[in-house]
């Protein structure tokens, strides 16, 4: 396993290098001249030169890349092409909102998905199992942005209720702050709870067939103890890794949920930056998310190797 861990660790810098190269050459890959595209009617030679320098297009790539990556390492991702402010400041300001939404979503999916999966496994092939599985199949098929639309439209049309839009800071009103995340969190949780339900169910069914569970039953332990202490603990191993990998789903979800529920988080920032062609913001965003995910994938892989010693890596 040591060899596997070393190999896995060695891959990380290579992947990060590829990622940074990809992000760096993003601006240079834009068809046509970015400076012309960006300035359009406000074009003057001075402005063009300034923007070129700002984007680092006045120097060849082999000179610019080390400079750019040096900035990135020290936390300087450049200034926004829209506001002129450092991009990283905006990202730090918006990060808590996306994190709170993500945590809310994750919490709700865990609280619903795992118990539902256990119930489905214990009641295998009975009505409740069939019903839960049906719900999870449907839950996976409904797009987040449609469900979000429906939970806003249906109450508005039927009972004249609609959620408050406009972001409330936690320090101003903690209850209202948490409340505003409840609905988007629940919408985002649906798809993920469906995945957790299916996975927990399959894993529990697998584990409940094992000898040590039969032994636990045979020695007269209560069914609750057997399920909780013996079965669930082992069934959760793959679930842990899926929760780690689900971060991707949370980020994707936040893009839509923040847009629809008017939450000024990172997902909304990403969409706005694309709409306003704020290239430095997009670069920073893609690179940071990429780094986070490379590390998350690494942790998940290592965790998997540690948690389940039966897995051998040659």
């Amino acid at each position, binding site marked *: 396993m040591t060899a596997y861990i070393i190999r896995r660790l060695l891959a990380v810098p290579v992947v990060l290098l*590829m990622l940074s190269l990809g992000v760096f050459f993003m601006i240079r890959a834009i*068809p046509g001249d970015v400076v012309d595209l960006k300035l359009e009617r406000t074009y003057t030679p001075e402005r063009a030169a300034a923007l070129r320098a700002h984007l680092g297009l006045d120097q060849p790539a082999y000179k610019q890349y080390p400079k750019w990556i040096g900035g990135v390492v020290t936390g300087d991702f450049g200034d926004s092409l829209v506001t002129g402010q450092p991009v990283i400041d905006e990202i730090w300001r918006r990060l808590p909102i996306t994190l709170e939404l993500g945590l809310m979503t994750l919490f709700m999916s865990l609280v619903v998905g795992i118990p539902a999966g256990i119930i489905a496994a214990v009641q295998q092939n009975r009505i409740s199992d069939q019903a839960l599985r049906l719900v999870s199949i449907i839950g996976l098929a409904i797009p987040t942005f449609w469900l979000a639309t429906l939970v806003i439209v249906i109450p508005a049309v039927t009972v004249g209720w609609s959620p408050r839009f406009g972001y409330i800071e936690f320090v101003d009103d903690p209850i209202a702050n948490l409340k505003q995340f409840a609905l988007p969190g629940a919408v985002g949780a649906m798809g993920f709870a469906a995945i957790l339900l299916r996975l927990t169910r399959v894993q529990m069914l697998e584990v409940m067939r094992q000898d040590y569970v039969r032994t636990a039953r045979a020695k007269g332990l209560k069914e609750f103890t057997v399920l909780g202490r013996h079965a669930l603990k082992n069934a959760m191993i793959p679930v842990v890794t899926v929760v780690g990998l689900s971060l*991707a*789903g949370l980020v994707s979800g936040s893009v839509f949920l923040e847009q629809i529920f008017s939450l000024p988080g990172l997902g909304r920032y990403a969409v706005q930056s*694309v709409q306003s062609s704020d290239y430095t913001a997009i670069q920073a965003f893609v690179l940071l998310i990429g780094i986070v995910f490379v590390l998350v994938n690494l942790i998940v892989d290592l965790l998997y190797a540690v948690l389940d010693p039966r897995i051998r890596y040659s």
Partner: protein
Amino acid sequence: MTAIAAPELPVARSFAGKQARSFARFARTQPLGTFGLTLVVIIVFVAVFGEWLVRSDPDALSNDILRSPNAKHWFGTDHIGRDYYSRVVSGARITVALAVIAVAIGFGIGTVLGMASAWALGWFDLFFQRVIDALLALPGIILALALVAVFGRDTHVLILILTLLITPGVTRFARGTALSLLNEPYIEAAQALGAGTPRILLRHLLPNLLPSVAVVVTTSVGGLLLVSAGLSFLGLGVQPPTAEWGKMLAEGRDYYLHAPYLAIFPGVGLSLAVLGVNLFGDAIRDVWDPRLRAL
């Protein structure tokens, strides 16, 4: 010596009959999968024959603005008087077309690259797989946003995005499967008989590789549909006036209070499409290889 009558081979029975029997078995053992397949067939049918199913030009404006569903406009009309039924029907076409193109390209390129990586190994494999790692590290929607930022909002860009989303996963899976298949005795036998590289790859490896790659591709179509409709919902995918379900949901947002039906029909179409491919994908995965049943 009397001639022995050749025994009648069971193989000689009609190919069509065999297909029908194996389909009947699929329908019996996988009712949900069959339901999914039915949904997929219906949506593909609507996509192909949409021109004959619409009741008016889906892009034609009229003075009937925001009319509730009625005898003339089955699904009502939108904010500029377009017949919503015709738009929902014609929305199937772009959805199916994008998915089919992206799947075809991703399936082809992914299989070839995965096979090449498994056969070449060494530095090429090591380097190439790190590129795949980098692509897989990004959540799909982020990769998509970055590509829209670079190449603009356009249906061609959407095809590029969907292809780039599906190909790395297919490549990784094809490589893994090819690596294990290359250890099979029949590959060694072919080598011992002096078969060259192209022959081994195309005649021995590829036919055994394709079915499981096809299964994995099928299970990822649902996600592709969601990304493509999602980008269009954000205004970054299919551009007006083309009728596309995700974009229709976004266009209706300002009018939902007076015309809630605008929020229903495109969403139903999209969800049924995703449900169909998910159910069918799960079923053929279970039939083909129960070991792949991860989620």
